[in-house]
């Protein structure tokens, strides 16, 4: 199994916000926290495009690099997750993220009133027992452990938002481009996946 990725085909996105609603409902995120949202660029003018944005689970994730408590980790499938028990709510990850993925629900944390950071988990839960109540309350639903893909992508009516194994979704996108004869913009793809894969901590230690 290769790396898990998101791909938003802007040629297809119709700004229905189905992905946003699906995510919010599935993960029961609190008021003010939208793990995924639809951004429209060039609104109302020719060339208008809508993009569904959430955590892209970057190859070399900036949030992981700046976190002062190192509460982020990357799974074998390439999903960037974090441990809310270690998060101090400092907000550094929010400033580092090029996609504005980290969300703060307002609540108690070590710094100020932002609360512990919340973000898209690729519907993979977090560092709690798979499918447990504790996992759901802290991180939302763990669909990956149920053999399912993130609900935002599975609910997408036009299949603009693709999620899953990198080679598979790349092939799906490539086939679309061939058939319609136009390469849209795989938005954020280079920003998120253009850098080399971040080495696992064990490999880093060995390299020292």
């Amino acid at each position: 199994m290769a790396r898990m990725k998101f791909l938003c085909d802007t040629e297809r996105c119709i700004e229905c916000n189905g992905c946003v609603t699906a995510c919010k409902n599935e993960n029961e995120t609190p008021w003010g926290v939208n793990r995924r949202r639809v951004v429209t660029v060039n609104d109302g003018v020719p060339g208008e495009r809508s993009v569904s944005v959430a955590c892209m689970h970057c190859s070399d994730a900036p949030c992981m690099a700046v976190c002062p408590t190192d509460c982020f980790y990357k799974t074998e499938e390439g999903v960037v997750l974090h441990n809310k028990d270690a998060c101090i709510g400092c907000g550094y990850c929010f400033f580092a993220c090029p996609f504005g993925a980290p969300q703060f629900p307002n609540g108690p944390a070590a710094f100020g009133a932002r609360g512990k950071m919340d973000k898209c988990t690729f519907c993979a839960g977090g560092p709690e027992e798979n499918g447990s109540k504790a996992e759901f309350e802290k991180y939302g639903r763990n669909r990956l452990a149920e053999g399912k893909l993130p609900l935002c992508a599975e609910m997408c009516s036009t299949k603009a938002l693709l999620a899953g194994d990198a080679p598979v979704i790349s092939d799906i996108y490539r086939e679309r481009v061939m058939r319609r004869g136009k390469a849209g913009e795989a938005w954020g793809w280079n920003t998120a996946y253009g850098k080399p894969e971040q080495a696992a901590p064990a490999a880093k230690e060995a390299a020292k």
Partner: protein
Amino acid sequence: MKKALFLVLTVTVGLVACGEYSQVPNYKQGNYQGKSDVRPWEGEKFAGNKQAWENALRARNQGQTEYNRIK
């Protein structure tokens, strides 16, 4: 004698504060030190069967392309 005892007690009480240990967590830069997570196929549904999990995910992946339905 009393003077010596007083001196010993003062020094003992005075040095107790020096025994205070640091209460600041010692973070090691660049390494995740939180709880370990289990892998997706190690849950209740797949019970460690990675192959079955991969197959389930592959089927879901392919479900995203409508061209498969019209072939």
